[in-house]
């Protein structure tokens, strides 16, 4: 029971910190928040295979039971995807900071109006 409580509390802490940070107005805390949220989710997936001690991870005739390997495979997939997405988001946040001049998630400092050239550049205007 205590192990369950410990893991559940860890997930709750990670998730609540993650949600708090995701709701911040600057991109950096949002990135951190999403990372924490994905840690919480990854732990959650892992635990959904149930917590079992001292059991083999694959079916073994000698053992009466086994630890469910599927959530471990799922969590691996989720970690890989989450890592890629976080990397992309970091790059996007840096790029947005460069182009808009602010790290606010709306791309505008509170109180400022969006720049007049906010309309997306048309085909002719943009060239890269």
């Amino acid at each position, binding site marked *: 029971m205590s192990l369950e409580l410990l893991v559940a509390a860890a997930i709750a802490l990670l998730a609540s910190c993650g949600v708090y940070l995701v709701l911040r107005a600057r991109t950096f805390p949002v990135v951190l928040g999403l990372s924490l949220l994905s840690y919480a989710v990854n732990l959650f997936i892992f635990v959904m295979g149930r917590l079992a001690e001292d059991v083999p991870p694959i079916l073994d005739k000698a053992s009466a039971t086994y630890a469910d390997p599927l959530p471990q495979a*799922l969590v691996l997939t989720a970690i890989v995807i989450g890592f890629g997405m976080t990397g992309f988001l970091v790059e996007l946040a840096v790029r947005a900071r460069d182009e808009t001049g602010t790290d606010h998630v709306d791309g505008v400092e509170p109180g400022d109006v969006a720049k007049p050239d*906010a309309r997306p550049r048309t085909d002719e205007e943009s060239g890269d």
Partner: protein
Amino acid sequence: MIAAHLPVIPVVLPALAGALLLLVSGNIRPRRAIGLVATTTFLAVAILLVLRVIEAGPIVYALGEWPAPFGIVLVADRLAALMLVVLGIVALCAVVYARAGWDTHGRYFHAFFQFQLMGIAGAFLTGDLFNLFVFFEVLLIASYCLLLHGLGAERLRAAVHYVVLNLVGSALFLIAASLLYAVTGTLNMAHLAVRVGQLAPADQPLAASAGLILLVVFLLKAASFPLHFWLPGAYVAAAAPVAALFAIMTKVGVYSIVRVFGVIFGADAGALAQLASPWLLPLAIGTMIAGVLGALASRRLAEMVAYLTVSSVGTVLVALVPVTEAALSGALFYMVHSTFTVAALFLIAELLGARRGPAGDELVPAPRMARPLVLGLLFVIGAASIVGLPPFSGFLGKLMILQGTRASPAAPWIWASILGVGFLMLVGVARGGAVIFWSNAPGAPGIESGHASAGTLLPAIALALAGIAMAVFAAPIKAYTDATAAEIVHPHRYVEAVLGPAGGPGADMLKTLPGVNER
């Protein structure tokens, strides 16, 4: 030989084409050719799949020959095949449109385009809940890159919102999928359908909460009220061919709702059957109203089209509330129609904007545009169709939805919202059209830019014609959507196709394993 692998081709073909496109550098021409050939072949395969499915029923493709529920299966049933054809048509038009210039802005446009196709096709075909998550991520990462195509401050601003929201959505999806796995011990949708129906009463609330979290994720993808605020920003910022392709992205959310709440929480789910219906009614009506109010308040034509997309999603969702064959058939018909029409309108909005000089597609008076006839006709067809005026496809779709929901206890709500919102839509597009075409500021006629060449008009005309063809060939299409709706309302056909009749060998084997979940 190839025929046996037909269901996997819509996933493998864009993946290979996309990988190849990453390698081809230099001149744009080979990339254009590969993109066009791959997309055309994709459409041809999708049409073949429809013909096969009509003939032989759902086709189940076990990847690596691992039988369900152990391996991942792809299931091409009527619904998936229909969505693939719609995707193929929209993608072909978008890729032809992009050849006029948008695809020269970044080296990887065509590669991302193919990866986007791969993700969407995989989401339509997969029969596994976790695999659906993976394909969602594939289509999302491609859509992030496509949304950013052309860069600029507004695209980056819209992309930050879009990416963060979808990452939160992905986290919710994972929570829901693993929760469902924890109570049922499976992720195969057909197997989930069996297991959810057999759940102990103590486990039912957990499965129900997992289902409703999934509903939140899909409603976010579908841009349903109150989760629709990301859509106008993202779709307006996107380049027109990308926005046209994105017209099908909201439908991925709607498709997932139909699939998950048709199969897993469908008619055979016992106490959890029709889990989503009570939630969908107010949300769908809210979506329709939020969409049309946004369309009325829009300052740009593309923004108006984006809000009309939101409203059309609401119309489809409201038809999912009474789970009857007639209403579902109407929902599917309307969904196909609205995808074509919205995609056409996004292209038309950019073409119009390109001819109005510095005003662009903003709804302000501008100098008279040169040769407005063809674009004007296209706009009228698209606008009349999305509003639902006869004789266009939108009218038929709404009529089918109205007829199909007549017997439902929610009918007064559904009828009042569809008819009222239709009227407000008419006011909105009439205002937009009047400003764009008739409210002229003094000045020289806008110059025609390279955008409005024949190569860009053709896809817009094709999409508008696809909508008209839906009205002309409404009878065979309705016969198809009727049969599709029958498949959705009777999910045991899907389950039997995947697991074999009365619990296949896989289902028997599972019972003998002393898993942790069974303790």
